[in-house]
């Protein structure tokens, strides 16, 4: 039940991330290499989420990790981490875009003002 909860809480974020990167790529806003890397990242996260039940079973009370059962705290922690990865990725993309536009604007403005003199 807890594993199902973990998956249900995180599926929306992972789905949104995948939808974003596919849309960006289809609209020509993301180069293929970046698309491939981002796709790999989120597919790995999705696989680990879906495989969390067998993964925990493998690690519970076994060396070297001696993991305990999935707790409520673990669920919250993992959900927050995945959300932060998504948010950080998105913010970084926007920051880079803004920086690029600002640099281009500064360049063009400098050239135009020099032309006007």
């Amino acid at each position, binding site marked *: 039940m807890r594993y199902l909860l973990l998956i249900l809480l995180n599926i929306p974020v992972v789905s949104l991330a995948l939808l974003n990167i596919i849309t960006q790529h289809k609209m020509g806003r993301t180069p293929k290499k*970046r698309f491939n*890397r*981002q796709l790999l*990242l989120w597919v790995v996260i999705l696989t680990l989420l879906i495989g969390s039940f067998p993964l925990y079973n493998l690690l519970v009370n076994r060396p070297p990790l001696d993991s305990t059962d999935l707790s409520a705290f673990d669920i919250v922690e993992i959900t927050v981490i995945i959300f932060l990865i998504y948010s950080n*990725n998105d913010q*970084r*993309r926007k920051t*880079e875009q803004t*920086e*690029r536009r600002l*640099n281009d604007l*500064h*360049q*063009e*403005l*400098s*050239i135009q*003002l*020099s032309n006007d003199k």
Partner: protein
Amino acid sequence: MVEKKFCVVIPAYNEASVIKGVVRSARKVFSSFKYPVDIVVIDDGSRDNTSTEAMAGGARVIRHILNSGAGGATATGLSYAMQYGYTGAATMDADGQHDPQDVLRGITEISTGNIDLLIGSRLIDSSGMSRVKVLGNWGLSLITFILFGVKSTDSQSGMRIYSRKALEQLRWKTSGYEFCSEMIWRASQLGLTICEYPIQAIYTDYSKSKGQNNWNAVNILKSLVKRRVMEAFE
């Protein structure tokens, strides 16, 4: 048939005391070339009379509103060259470190049409360079190779010649001196033909005083590692 013409970009920051002389001596050398060569000084937000002095020397001047760093100033100059239809462009330092004859040799080489990015290397013949500078530049070239897989004897050289194809395609993200390494990496990613040729470094008391602090190599290294790591997550 469109006549070939070339643009020499000189990024400058607080070089009022030498820029007029640098521009005049460059104009004298370039006047003998078979194609027209225009000189454009990019004043990167200087606090002295760099712009006025550069214009007095006969250069066209583009003045940055904000100080953007060597990478930013170079990007503006090459963008100008691309927009105004130049066949190729070159960059050289504003402090008199570069011999305009070396720039002309590079432009002559690029005008044959086979090379996209030609880097003037001070380390092919490093006589005249101090050991510290040789070691520092060699170290940064090694780091450029380790991080980006691109071989270069002088990855930090400011004398570079660009073909039209390079002007149209080459872009980079860093704005400080680390752009020198990033540019070579981006050129390699784009499949541009990169070559080197030997140049002389002219060290005067002025250029030595204006030159990079060796500790800046730490900042360059940090920025390059960060850029490389970020690329893996993009």
